[in-house]
């Protein structure tokens, strides 16, 4: 296997890819989050195990990572979270706050890593899934005074499962990118 070529062009290309921000068509920004929330409420009707999947969270992570703008991540997370809250029986804001934080941190992290790397995507998805679940558990317990039984191994398995799903889903969404700014 030949050694990697560390010339100046490759180094600049790497920096450019690291700092590039993906842009999407507005329709994609509108429909994909909507579709993710729809799948979240639609699929479990027919396939009960899909209740484990957290499509809105994966879409939040993807757009936050690809936009590389914390402000965009905040807005994306807040909108998707509030939409998810709207279709649930709990007060508005629970998922909104959690996903706002996820969007912000995902966008912040994306500034320092090459988010096109599948392995990194997998690890980030697993991390943010666990972060999302933990934060949600804390908020439900602190703000609503409710207790949710959480099993660490189950949550870890769900994190790995969602991360595994995120890889092909992100590749699919990559096809919808317009260009790199």
């Amino acid at each position: 296997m030949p050694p990697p070529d560390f010339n100046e062009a490759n180094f600049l290309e790497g920096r450019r890819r690291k700092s590039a921000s993906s842009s999407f068509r507005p329709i994609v920004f509108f429909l994909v989050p909507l579709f993710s929330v729809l799948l979240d409420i639609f699929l479990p009707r027919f396939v009960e195990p899909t209740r484990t999947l957290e499509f809105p969270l994966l879409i939040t992570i993807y757009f936050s990572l690809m936009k590389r703008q914390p402000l965009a991540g905040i807005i994306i997370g807040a909108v998707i979270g509030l939409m998810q809250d709207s279709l649930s029986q709990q007060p508005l804001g629970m998922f909104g706050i959690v996903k706002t934080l996820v969007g912000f941190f995902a966008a912040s992290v994306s500034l320092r890593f090459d988010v096109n790397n599948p392995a990194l995507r997998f690890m980030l998805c697993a991390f943010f899934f666990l972060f999302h679940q933990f934060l949600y558990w804390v908020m439900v317990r602190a703000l609503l005074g409710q207790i949710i039984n959480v099993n660490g191994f189950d949550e870890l398995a769900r994190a790995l499962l969602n991360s595994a799903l995120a890889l092909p889903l992100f590749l699919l969404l990559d096809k919808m990118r317009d260009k790199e700014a």
Partner: protein
Amino acid sequence: MDGLLGRYRNLSVLVIVIMAQLVLLAVQVKNNQDVRLIRVWAVTAITPLARVLEGIRANTFGLAGEYWDLLEVRSRNQSMKSDLDRLKLENQYLKAELATAKRIEAMAGFVQRSPNKTIGARIIGTGAGMNSKVVFIDRGSTAGVLKGMAVITPDGIVGKVTASYPTGSQVMLITDPTFACGVLSDKSRIHGTARGQGNNQILIDYIQNEQTVLVGEIFYTSGDDRIFPKGLPVGPVRVARQGKLFKEIYVSPAAFDRGLEEVLVVLEGVHLPIPDLASQSSSSAEAKLMPPPEADAAAAPVDASPRPASGQGFATDADRLLQRYRSLGEQQGVSYGNGGRLPNFNAPAVPRTSAPKASAVAPSPNITPPSTPRAPNP
């Protein structure tokens, strides 16, 4: 202040958004009221998409489900078709078995009622050739079946055994052109000869045109042929018309109406067989001919031939008259019938005390003369 917000713009927006949602949450929790507007927006945005998705799902998954159902229906249909074929075969087999059982039951009843000694046989094949009118049965000489025996069913006569082998026999059907047997009609008591025509009809021959035979009249065996016992049905008359010399009467064989599978071979008829010394000495395996049947009172032919010496049975008035003249001649010392002096026929006959008296009484033709050796049972 503006510079601070500008420097920490992302963080500031985050805090503002979080705080706004916390306030929203607090309002909802404190007032126990829902913020309906946001939910309306969300539901309004989601519902059309959900309707489209549901439509796609219903069409695609529903179609796929119906396709799978169709596949299942097809496989089930094939399975049911094979079951139906199997049940049809079973049904046909059971129907055949039932028909066989009914035939055998009828045959068993016939055998019990009939005075003939018979043995059941199954037809196992037909003779070679397109126009063959012979069949093979599974009973042969080891079962007592001999050449010349009659083959019948409860419905009527079938034919006669033309060859007997150890394990089977060949039977000539009554439809064979060379077959013939004596018959008698049930109403007009007309005698005739049934002859095979090579088809499904039998010609009743030698019946005068002046005699009346009606369609539907049934012909029975007359026993004249000494093969078939008298009284077995041959078949009903289908056609009866005037012919050149004799009437043309066609009868459909009654035994063939329901097909031929099981038959009865008449081993021993109601009459004892007439001994045939010549055939016995030649050791040929042939059935002994039965004695002539009981004479029909209406149409019995007069046998004018002289009977043998005394001790034999007399069948006609001429025999009785001859015997009377002989006895008169003996009483008067004249030998009657030798061309000499005639006896006085008006003289009263002296009754004899012993055997001659008994011989004067005409015995029944059914009684076989004692000198006749009894044929061994096959």
